[in-house]
């Protein structure tokens, strides 16, 4: 038979570079109370304290809240600091508040190492990565194609029509674009009409959703739906003598640092996905700089060629990045030959604004 239960919950959050807020709740069959303590991280001194009763016994228990202020200035580095809290806060205020404060202090002392590690990581994140140190802008005399463009309604997530995307691409000086709508392949005739109408190079590709991530595929006519097995896709592409590019393989890590989850380029390069693709899209307009740089490092380890594309879903995104070809591309066959011959590199074209 349960005779008594007490629960304590402590949460620590960093509220300033050198300050934490420790929030403690104590709730048992008799008492219920909480404290919020601000503590300076460098000298481990209590800056302020706020406590509140939720449930107590005598009519004078609420007086205990007033004397909590005696904890201001206590230094957690002091020898026998818990004894001091018991003696001074426990007696002047209340021993249950003292108990909760000790739990808060003990949690912070345990957490300190973890917090220092996070500060180190944070500082690291704050180091600005300049993508221009890794990828170059491309001379305008090279042949520049945005290999990754979406249009509406072929891609329901896109905002602008194919006509709008083409007009924008021409306006900004690209030499061509590749239509890579999701699991959709444009009909050859439609694209020929668009080419003639706009007097502009328009190529066909598709972005296929596979069990190993999104793959840009060139040179196939088969339309895929749902999630496709990468092996099945590879077989189909080989039959058609096509080309497969892993699109933004490391997108989605924006909330956590690669290192904090233990992912290194060496480890990432071992992913099964890379056994099936012919190239890696290391410049993608919808991926942050550090993720693009990470992808580049993986491609270097694998000795796989790299491409660039905007992944534009609207006109303002067209040409942020592109692929720079050494030779003029006139049609899909030229594109696949050039891709297979590795005569290209990813480049910053419009860049992020």
């Amino acid at each position, binding site marked *: *038979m*349960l*005779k*008594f*239960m*007490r*629960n*304590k*919950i*402590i*949460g*620590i*959050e*960093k*509220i300033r570079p050198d300050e*934490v807020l420790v929030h403690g709740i104590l709730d*048992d*069959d*008799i008492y219920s109370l909480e404290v919020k303590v601000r503590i300076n991280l460098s000298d481990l001194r209590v800056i302020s304290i706020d406590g509140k009763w939720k449930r107590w*016994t*005598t*009519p*004078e*228990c609420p*007086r*205990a809240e*007033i*004397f909590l202020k005696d904890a201001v200035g206590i230094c957690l580095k002091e020898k026998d600091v818990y004894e001091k809290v018991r003696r001074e806060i*426990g*007696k*002047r*205020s*209340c*021993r249950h508040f003292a*108990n909760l404060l*000790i*739990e808060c202090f*003990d*949690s*912070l002392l*345990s*957490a300190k190492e*973890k*917090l220092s590690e*996070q500060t180190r990581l*944070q500082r690291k994140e704050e180091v600005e990565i300049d993508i221009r140190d890794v990828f170059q802008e491309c001379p305008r005399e090279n042949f520049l194609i945005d290999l990754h463009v979406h249009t509406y309604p072929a891609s329901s997530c896109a905002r602008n029509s194919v006509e709008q995307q083409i007009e924008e691409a021409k306006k900004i000086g690209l030499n061509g674009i590749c239509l890579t709508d999701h699991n959709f392949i444009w009909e050859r005739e439609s694209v020929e009409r668009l080419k003639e109408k706009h007097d502009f190079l328009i190529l066909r590709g598709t972005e296929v959703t596979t069990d190993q991530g999104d793959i840009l595929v060139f040179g196939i006519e088969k339309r895929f739906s749902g999630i496709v097995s990468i092996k099945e896709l590879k077989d189909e592409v080989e039959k058609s003598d096509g080309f497969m590019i892993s699109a933004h393989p490391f997108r989605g890590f924006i909330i956590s640092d690669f290192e904090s989850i233990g992912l290194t380029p060496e480890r990432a390069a071992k992913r099964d996905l890379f056994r099936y693709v012919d190239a890696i899209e290391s410049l993608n307009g919808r991926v942050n700089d550090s993720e693009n740089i990470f992808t580049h490092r993986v491609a270097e380890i694998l000795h796989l060629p790299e491409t660039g594309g905007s992944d534009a879903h609207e006109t303002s995104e067209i040409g942020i990045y592109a692929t720079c070809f050494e030779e003029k591309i006139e049609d899909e066959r030229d594109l696949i030959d050039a891709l297979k011959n590795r005569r290209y590199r990813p480049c910053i074209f419009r860049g992020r604004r």
Partner: protein
Amino acid sequence: MYHILCFSRIKNIYVEQIKEDLLSSTCYLKDNLKEIMITVTVELPDLEIKKAEGKIKNRGRFEDIKKTVFDGIIGKRIGPGIFRIIKESVKTDESQIQMMLEECCRGIILSFTKEDLLNSPRPEDDEEAIKYYAEMVKKNVRLLNRCAAFSEGSRIIEYAKVHEK
């Protein structure tokens, strides 16, 4: 980084009557770095500690805490001086073990406080409650200056002083 908890801890203490004359008090801790469980078995009516044991998670697996860690408290009674006994006789690298043993003992004490409170005729009316606690202080002087409620300036103590004369 800000406004997201960087460290969390829960600590749960529960006291169970496992036999007519045996109570067990368990303290469980889980935080970002540790997971520990300590159980103390106490015999009534002397509140003598008959057994103490614990587990600590190490590399994903619970391991028993060495029994010798608890040798110094076996046979001791939960009463005055027990926290000092724990502090002086329980020596381990893991400081939480001492603190959790204290929590187990405190849980036992509070389980009786709860019973007392349930059985006491505590008045709901504020003024009557002041009188009730003032009488309690007069009967048990150890309560004096024990906390803010029983210190100088408290209505309970003021009432006790006035009615002492």
